[in-house]
């Protein structure tokens, strides 16, 4: 546990120095600020536009952080060989992976907290309300960000940072389009094609479970226990990706 904590602390120190974290933060802040003026041009109420834009920007920031920081965090260690400095010590490889993830998640959670504070502050200043569905949406996006980072870490254990970034982006897009697959396999009568789609549907995570922007915007009620189930679903994927990362990294020649 101590080793994971130490590696996590070191990763956090390293990530804090990465300018991309601040660029993404700035990007989200800018989008939220712009959404204030977009509200005037829209047929919807200004608050609805801000909510929609803000939550979408926060979701995309998860992808950006995973692509620009998550995939590099391990690849950079291997290419610069700083990994030797750690794995030559009496620590297990899984501790290295978990430490890296924990450190990265800590900084990104802090970043996300700042985004959330700015978003909520803007909403309140413009007469909006902090609804329960809004808080749930923010928790869901945070969980999605944690999944994206674990996926990026997983891809970077067996491929180059460029490919890992591509895989992470594809994973994000596929995860959000997963519902379309289910519609296709239900409508298709050809059994093999339907089976392949079914396998894909169950293999890929459904990131749309973490997208409840519509409910926030239209102020619709959430089903009982939806948030808890979404978070559990997300945690299971995080555990799966981390276990796979540990197994692959354990066998990797450095």
């Amino acid at each position: 546990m101590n080793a994971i904590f130490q590696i996590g602390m070191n990763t956090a120190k390293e990530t804090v120095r990465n300018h991309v974290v601040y660029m993404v933060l700035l990007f989200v802040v800018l989008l939220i600020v712009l959404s204030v003026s977009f509200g005037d041009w829209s047929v919807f109420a200004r608050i609805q536009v801000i909510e929609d834009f803000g939550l979408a920007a926060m979701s995309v920031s998860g992808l950006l952080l995973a692509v620009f920081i998550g995939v590099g965090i391990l690849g950079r260690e291997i290419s610069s060989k700083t990994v030797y400095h750690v794995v030559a010590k009496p620590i297990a490889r899984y501790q290295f992976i978990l430490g890296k993830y924990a450190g990265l998640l800590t900084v990104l959670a802090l970043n996300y907290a700042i985004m959330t504070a700015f978003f909520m502050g803007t909403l309140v200043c413009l007469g909006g309300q902090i609804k329960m569905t809004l808080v749930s949406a923010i928790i869901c996006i945070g969980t999605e960000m944690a999944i994206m980072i674990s996926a990026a870490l997983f891809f970077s254990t067996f491929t180059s940072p460029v490919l890992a970034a591509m895989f992470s982006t594809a994973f994000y897009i596929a995860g959000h389009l997963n519902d379309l697959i289910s519609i296709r396999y239900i409508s298709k009568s050809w059994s093999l094609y339907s089976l392949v789609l079914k396998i894909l549907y169950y293999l890929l995570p459904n990131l749309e479970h973490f997208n409840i922007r519509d409910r926030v915007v239209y102020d619709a009620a959430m089903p009982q226990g939806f948030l808890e189930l979404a978070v559990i679903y997300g945690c299971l994927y995080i555990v799966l990706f981390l276990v796979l990362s540990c197994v692959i990294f354990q066998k990797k020649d450095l």
Partner: protein
Amino acid sequence: MNIIEFSNVTKIYRKGFWAKKVPAVTDCSFSVEQGVVTGFVGPNGAGKTTSIKMILGMVRPSAGRIMVAGKNPHCPDSRKDIAYISEQPYFYHHLTVRETLLFAARLHARPRLGIETDIEKALVRVGLDGLGQRKIKDLSKGMQQRCAMAQALLMHSNILVLDEPLSGLDPLGRRFFRDILRACAEKGTTIFFSTHIIDDIESLCRRVVVLSKGRTEYQGSIDDLVAKGTLGTDIVIPEVTETLREVLMRTGCEISVLADNKTNVFVPANRDIVQCQRLLCEHRVFCESMTKRCTPLEEILYRRNREQTDL
């Protein structure tokens, strides 16, 4: 007792798109005795770094068995008593020297009590006192290498594994490193280090493992290796009579006249030197000096590899 044991170890890397097999180490066997300084020699691409990585559990062998302090190198406990210094110091550039040492100490689960004092002592020992707050990226390569040595000293490890630690250092830095290694060896630390520099082998090591093209070419004491390369003995005498010249030449000696009119009698290693000495005594000729003529260690170490390359 052997602290590191390699038994018929093979490592084959898979490279490229078609996963072409590239053997790095082939059926390699050697051992490192506890408390002995062992040099690990071989030309570039001989498999030294791969072997060291296997010792540290960074690379898995394709076949064979490796034991480090009686444990499998993939078990983290096997590295509890090992300090490793690589050819290039691979440190986190965002950390200061002190933070780097503290990070290493914590990964080694060193107790917090007294760690600050130990860090200061280690920094003084390697000549980095007063530089604890300096960022790693602001240090020269030599200084970073000193920091790596400070880290190794901080752990009080019984085994030092060094991968060409002295290459790239200036003569003063090399001498400084050698002195520290010598002091560690006197304390009974097992030192296993790979190098190209024969001077380092001669001045530090008692044993040597020679690797060539991934195979163990030789392992044993330096003295035995030098003995294998002994060509004969040069005996310098003031003068030689015709009779003595003939007698000596009959015994297989080579006679040559030196610049100062003295005579050099070379007794090849396969001839009986005692008989030559007896002949000189009988002819009342006294030796002025006797020296062994040896092939330089570098020549012995790399001769075989060169022969293989020539073929």
